[in-house]
């Protein structure tokens, strides 16, 4: 950490008056371009969505229509398909994030203990993260194929049942989860590994000298010290899982039926297939609201983590 040299100096400049003003304006000027981009192109569309959510907007019948008050909200709140899609999103997020965290942490420990070849292992682990879910996801359809797919071929070789991965109502969602786990477990593993390697050595040596059991060391030393990193990964993965769209779009298109239709996909279908922009915008507002509430609980601890670092730096 570099020392906080400029904090006292900037305070001295404040006392100096003239120079401080200029410092302040200079710093504000620097953020202006980025803030303009974010405010104009992120917040303006949001205001637009909010406006549409209070109107009648069936694009098959022309333009954005009249003000209808809270009617769209009533409709969406009583729409069973909406709640079904929300439930699919919850199921997907819980299972995928749980599997990724558990497997990722386990793999991190596995690699951490390895003596040779860590570099090679890490480079291979990175590969799925470089690929687009839309492209590799599409190719996974070929792997999942009941006729030509490699996965069922291998399952057949060892005498296991060969399920219809993407066509079966009961397992289609799990197939999407499996794909997500394939792509994102290395992410969790890499970051947990970085966290493990950054741990200080002394407390562990001391604990070992005291004869503490491995389990006890894990519970009282390793995990508490890893917690900030793991929490960060958990939040990042949860945000991404809730927004899942690409994998569903290329693997199942929400089917069979609607068993893999996540909230984002249902929103997309309502807005751009059925052209009910009003309902879709309302769902977008719900979605945003849920994210904001969640961010209150998830982002705060992260922010304190970040800002304590910023004030150190």
């Amino acid at each position: 950490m570099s020392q906080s040299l400029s904090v006292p100096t900037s305070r001295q400049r404040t006392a100096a008056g003239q120079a401080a003003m200029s410092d302040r304006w200079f710093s504000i000027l620097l953020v202006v371009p980025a803030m303009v981009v974010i405010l104009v192109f992120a917040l303006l569309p949001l205001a637009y969505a909010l406006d549409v959510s209070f109107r009648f907007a069936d694009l098959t019948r022309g333009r954005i229509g009249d003000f209808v008050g809270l009617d769209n909200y009533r409709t969406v709140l009583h729409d069973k398909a909406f709640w079904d899609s929300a439930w699919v999103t919850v199921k997907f997020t819980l299972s995928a994030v749980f599997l990724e965290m558990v497997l990722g942490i386990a793999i991190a420990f596995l690699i951490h203990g390895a003596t040779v070849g860590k570099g090679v292992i890490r480079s291979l682990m990175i590969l799925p993260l470089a690929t687009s879910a839309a492209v590799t996801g599409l190719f996974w359809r070929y792997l999942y194929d009941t006729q030509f797919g490699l996965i069922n071929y291998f399952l057949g070789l060892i005498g296991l049942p060969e399920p219809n991965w993407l066509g079966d109502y009961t397992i289609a969602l799990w197939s999407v989860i499996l794909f997500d786990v394939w792509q994102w477990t290395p992410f969790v593993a890499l970051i947990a590994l970085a966290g493990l390697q950054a741990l200080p050595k002394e407390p562990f040596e001391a604990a070992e000298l005291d004869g503490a059991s491995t389990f006890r060391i894990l519970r009282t030393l390793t995990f508490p010290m890893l917690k900030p990193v793991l929490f960060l990964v958990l939040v990042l993965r949860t945000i991404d899982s809730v927004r899942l769209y690409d994998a569903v779009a290329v693997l199942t298109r929400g089917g069979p039926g609607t068993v893999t239709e996540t909230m984002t996909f249902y929103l997309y279908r309502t807005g751009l297939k059925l052209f009910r922009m009003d309902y879709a915008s309302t769902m977008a507002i719900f979605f945003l609201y849920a994210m904001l509430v969640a961010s209150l609980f998830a982002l705060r601890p992260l922010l304190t983590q970040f800002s304590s670092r910023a004030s150190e730096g």
Partner: protein
Amino acid sequence: MLQRDSSFAREALRYGLIVLVLGFIVFPIAWMIITSFKPPEDVMVSPPRFLFTPTLENYVHAIYDKNFLFYIKNTLFISVTSTVIVIIAGSLAAYSFARYNVGDGHLLFFILSTKMFPAIAVILPYFLIFRDVGKTGVGRFLGIGLDQPGALIISYTVFNLPFAIWLLVSFFQDIPRELEHSARLDGLSRLQVLAKVVCPLAAPGIAVTGVFTLIFSWNEFLFAYILTRKVASTVTVGVESFFTLQGILWGPVAAAATISVLPMLVFVLAMQRYMVRGLTFGAVRG
């Protein structure tokens, strides 16, 4: 003796498991690349064939019949333009956050929270706004509108800026302040300090951020899928165009997917050292 044996067994088990995990991770990508070299008659067979005479037929089909290089060209133009804008605006802002702490953390938090922002929530307004803007003269002139590169450049810039700013802040914080102070004492203006002292020092960090932004734009699907049809489609959408009435042509799909994934694989391998840092917005310095 006994202990040696058990530790050897443990190591063997460890590496066995690692190989298993790596196999699971690498295999889909490897199979994709292998499939791209298969002759058409060996692709759609059951059981899958492992031995075949490699051919470039799928690549020829993807590039000549499906004009896949067109998508590559589009993607390159869109993602590079957006990356340049992100890097310029992002570096300025990040420097200001790292050195002057503009907005006392509130602004930085706001920027992080836009990262939480579900893209799907703005995709409908984007669709409607770009549809209308595209019909006006200005929109046509600037290439902003549905199925125009400008629409995607804007979307990618907005959605990559928060990430870039966070990552860049962490890189700027690593630069010692003393150099800037002494440069200021030598009579350089703030802008000169930024251009002549800070930028060269931050160049590696800026490059890393740029590559990340490029990868994200290159791999983006949702905006590309909804805001483009034909003229401005990117690779992720281009691969989808191999769905035909006769079914999916898996050989050419594999070839196109390989072409579109390969550059990113190379980038990521070159950037390994910074992967963890980039993926956590600079929070974990791996």
